[in-house]
């Protein structure tokens, strides 16, 4: 089953990369952009058929390695689970 993990910097953590990109967009004629933040998307395939168990494992992966709880939040999404959990 396919899954997607999104890791984001927590609110309030300075994101100089995001600020720089926002400034570049402003220079290109997009002055309406606000609060641009850079995160990470991890797409993966799991050898697992149970969506509930998959979510549990994804959560464990995030806590152990994929996100740093000091600075980051994460969301996990099962994209094509057998429980009909088609997220899109």
């Amino acid at each position, binding site marked *: 089953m396919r899954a997607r993990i999104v890791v984001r910097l927590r609110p309030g953590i300075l994101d100089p990369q995001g600020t720089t990109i926002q400034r570049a967009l402003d220079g290109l004629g997009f002055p309406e952009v606000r609060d641009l933040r850079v995160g*990470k998307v991890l797409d993966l395939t799991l050898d697992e058929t149970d969506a509930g168990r998959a979510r549990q494992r994804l959560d464990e992966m995030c806590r152990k390695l994929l996100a*740093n709880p*000091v600075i980051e939040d994460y969301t996990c999404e099962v994209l094509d689970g057998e429980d009909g959990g088609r997220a899109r």
Partner: protein
Amino acid sequence: MRFGVVIFPGTWSDMDFHHVISQVLHQPVEYVWHRDTDVDRFDCLVLPGGFSYGDYLRAGAVAGRSPIVGALPGFVARGGLVLGSCNGFQILCEAGLLPGTLLRNDCLQFRCQWTHVTVEQTESPFTRGLRRGQVLKMPIAHGEGRFHADPALLRQLRERDQVVFRYATEAGEVTVGANPNGSAWNIAGVCNEDGTVVGLMPHPERAAEATVGSTDGLLLFHSLLGSLVENGSVLGR
């Protein structure tokens, strides 16, 4: 005192540390591969700088879950000492052996320059021979060295005397201008509650011979060896 210098894929300062420990300090030292977990023959393990695993995911994230880092809590519990510099500091934070974390420099530049730091605590074996407020000149070379901790943790670090070094001017004034990366409270180095694990962004091993411009980095090692002499054995094993 027996030193081990840990090598991860992508470590770059291992030979510098090995050189300083063996050729300048004349202490026994071995390289230790990141898959090794048998480390009890050492008194002090050094995690050098570099770009372990290419800084993939986050600086120090993958190395922070390697077998040798998994062995560190036991090593420290048995009285072992750990020094992490630059990427070694990032690895120790990622592994939860040191508080806080290190983020992209606020200037977005890779900073390779001399810095001055003040000594903020002198209880750790690495700083026992130093004076509070003493200024050390050591270089930095990193893109992700901005120390971050939330306000509650920062307060706790200050109260528990876990802030070891702060970026300052040559005269020892802690100023915004002396902060090369935007670190919270100008923090350049911290330790665990016992002071037995110390991490810092500057490179003491690159300030250990007059010919490179400073010998202040040696003071951390002298402090360490002095602690050993004072106590008979740092480890009490």
